[in-house]
């Protein structure tokens, strides 16, 4: 379930955590747990953003004819020829 969290859901959860931690009415134990959770959510958000940006870049390059994709939508590569 957690692995399916998209950017928006993760970000919304981060906002909730931030509000909770800002409230000033939070036990140290809970704040540590929330901070750890936030750490994971931040990493997830960053990964989602990076992958979205990479996808956009690939699409633009593909559209401009700078990139040829294989059946798996991955850039075609060629081995270096040793002569």
């Amino acid at each position, binding site marked *: 379930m957690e692995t399916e969290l998209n950017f928006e859901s993760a970000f919304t959860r981060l906002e909730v955590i931030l509000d909770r931690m800002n409230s000033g009415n939070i036990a140290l134990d809970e*704040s540590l747990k929330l901070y750890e959770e936030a750490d994971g959510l931040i990493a997830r958000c960053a990964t989602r*953003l990076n992958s979205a940006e990479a996808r956009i870049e690939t699409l633009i390059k593909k559209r401009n004819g700078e990139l040829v994709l294989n059946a798996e939508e991955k850039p075609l590569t060629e081995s270096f020829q040793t002569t």
Partner: protein
Amino acid sequence: MAAPLQKLDDLKIRLDQKIQQSILKKKIPPFGQTKASLGFKAPHTAEAFARKTLPSFKKNMDQALSTLMKTKRQKLKEIVQHLKSLDPKNVLKRGYAILFALNEGSVIVTAQDLRDGQQVRALLSDGEANLTVNQPFIHHGN
């Protein structure tokens, strides 16, 4: 009486045939001619329209995507900075430590929670250590 009626029937049949023939002969003019006949002086084909508008559409779409990604990244950056300022571990840099009960993993806040000989884990600004509690006592009046 029969002759005039027969003539009328023949006339009707011929008239129907003529109408059918004229419908079949009638040609539908090409789209361009229809547009021209309707007064379009410079008719644009769909292709020409697409050629003209597609590049700007692509550009606008790219810009919209770029703005969206920048906004999301900026929002994430702001929330990260905010959260960093609330990091409970910031206090450790000021000479404090956080004690955890070794088995439960819960934070020990009061001396009442400590038992003689208990193993605890201390979290410091740059690392951790296992400690053994020795003769805990409570400050009365606090």
